């Protein structure tokens, strides 16, 4: 597979300046085929700007980008034939019903036959749970219903790439769960690139994450790599009682870098930084359990919560900015 085929989205130095303000600093972003890429960042980080640039709704100040290997400036319409898009605040024609909205959308992609278009509309309405409201004017739709309609219209053309801007932002917990389920169902057929504030959702469905702050890409990695942290190979071990003797024993090992102990309510938690994951996996627990008095309640490779990582990265970026 050549790089063009491997990456659905590939930007090189893509940037946008609005009236002297850098909304997006040179961005080098790659989104792999058939991945779900969560695009994170605080408000005003440049997420929607990036999405609009990719869709040709806005023009870059500098840089280039390709989607499916095609240039976003010269082949925008061709690209949009293969893309489904849900805006952050989706707006449709209020005089239309949900079915009419989907019919109007479908007619941008398909010339016929009418029967198959209608079948596709029906199928899509069912997917997002709007079948019973299909012939109601969308003027009276709630935020959640509009969002579902947004997802429906975004994937009516069986897109190869689905771009969703805050797809779950205005939804209640059930609506959010439904949207995530739809995304998980669609991942078999499509690449999904979506921006969000809800880190829990990202951790649940994404396989890669890109973090944007102040218009700058500050992290991009597979989610597993990100939540493993950048503090080396770290194991966490919780045991009953005092952990000092275990700490001493572990520290003596050549494959151990450092051991930190924290004690609360009669339980000691050891954070063990190691140089060799394979040896640690095989030896660490066994080493601690050589003392028959020791009761280990938890053991495993330390994984961070995405929220911790996100906040750490964002605050680190802020400190760097302040230092400059």
């Amino acid at each position: 597979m050549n790089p063009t085929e491997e990456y659905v989205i590939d930007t090189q130095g893509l940037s946008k300046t609005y009236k002297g303000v850098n909304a997006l600093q040179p961005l080098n972003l790659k989104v792999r085929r058939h991945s779900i890429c969560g695009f994170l960042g605080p408000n005003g980080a440049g997420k929607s700007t990036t999405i609009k640039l990719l869709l040709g709704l806005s023009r870059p100040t500098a840089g280039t980008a390709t989607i499916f290997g095609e240039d976003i400036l010269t082949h925008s319409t061709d690209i949009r034939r293969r893309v489904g898009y849900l805006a952050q605040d989706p707006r449709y024609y209020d005089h239309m019903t949900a079915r009419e909205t989907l019919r109007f959308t479908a007619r941008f992609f398909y010339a016929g036959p009418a029967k198959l278009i209608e079948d596709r509309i029906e199928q899509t309405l069912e997917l997002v749970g709007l079948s019973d409201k299909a012939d109601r004017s969308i003027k009276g739709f709630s935020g959640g219903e509009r969002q579902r309609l947004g997802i429906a219209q975004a994937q009516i053309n069986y897109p190869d790439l689905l771009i969703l801007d805050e797809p779950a932002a205005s939804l209640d917990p059930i609506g959010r769960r439904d949207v995530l389920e739809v995304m998980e169902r669609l991942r078999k057929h499509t690449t999904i690139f979506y921006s969000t504030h809800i880190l829990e959702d990202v951790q649940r469905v994404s396989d890669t994450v890109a973090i944007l702050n102040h218009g700058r890409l500050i992290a991009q990695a597979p989610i597993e790599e990100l939540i493993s942290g950048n503090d080396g190979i770290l194991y966490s071990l919780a045991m009953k009682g005092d952990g000092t003797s275990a700490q001493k024993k572990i520290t003596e090992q050549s494959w151990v870098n450092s051991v930190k102990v924290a004690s609360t309510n009669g339980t000691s938690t050891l954070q063990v930084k190691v140089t060799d994951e394979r040896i640690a996996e095989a030896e660490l627990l066994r080493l601690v359990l050589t003392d028959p008095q020791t009761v280990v309640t938890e053991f495993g490779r330390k994984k961070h919560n995405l929220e911790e990582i996100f906040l750490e990265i964002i605050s680190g970026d802020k400190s760097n900015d302040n230092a400059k």
Partner: protein
Amino acid sequence: MTTLNNTLQPITERGWQSGFKNLLANEYTLWWGGRRWIKSALIWLAVINGFIFLIAFASTHDPSMTPENVVSTAIGVFVNIGVFATSIGIVVGSQGAIIREKQLGTAAWVLSKPASRTAFIFAKWLAYSVSSLIISLTFPAIVFLIQSQLFWKQIPAPGQFVESWLIMALNLQFYLALTLMLGTIFSARGPVAGIGISFLFAGSLLPLVLPEWITLLFPWMLQKLAETIALGKPLPEGWVIPVIATVVWILIFMGIALWRFGREEF
């Protein structure tokens, strides 16, 4: 054929035509899909043909007026009211055509689909152009001919009447193109309607102070020209200049509209 019937057939429109048919169909549905066109048509009939009723009524109380005089007066009134009212009507009616979609976000939604910006503008222009010509000029013209036959047992010379109608249509196209262009430049309706209507009213004042050759370069003379043609009077010298100039203005306005909308940031 089996394959054709069993799989969704992708749209084949490419380039500027991408999405054009769909956008145009949507615009036509807005104009003709509900009862809106009936309301609009009734308003235009009341505005334009209502005056003809008044003339017919007044003429029955003035024995000095011959049927020829009355018909000439009625033609003059029809053309003048028609040109003036449809100019205001098209500015008011189309002021939100682009701006409303920019403000509501529907333009951004539509343009995230495989629809070209040129198709977006052309679909608006064609739908507004054809629909307003039918509703505000063709229906009243047909009713005028019926009124004329009913009240005075004669109708204007068909050739002259059609030529006059074409001049009125050209005038309407000018104000439509101007309004659409302004809609791509501004993001509020105020300046769009304000500039369009001010330009129309300027046509009553500026020709009095500007040299004639400048006046001829604008569509202000079309009203007089349409009346002259409809009444079968000799055409003034240089009558073709405002006609050609108006066509050129329309092309310029549409060109600017396409260029400006092509650079719009959503």
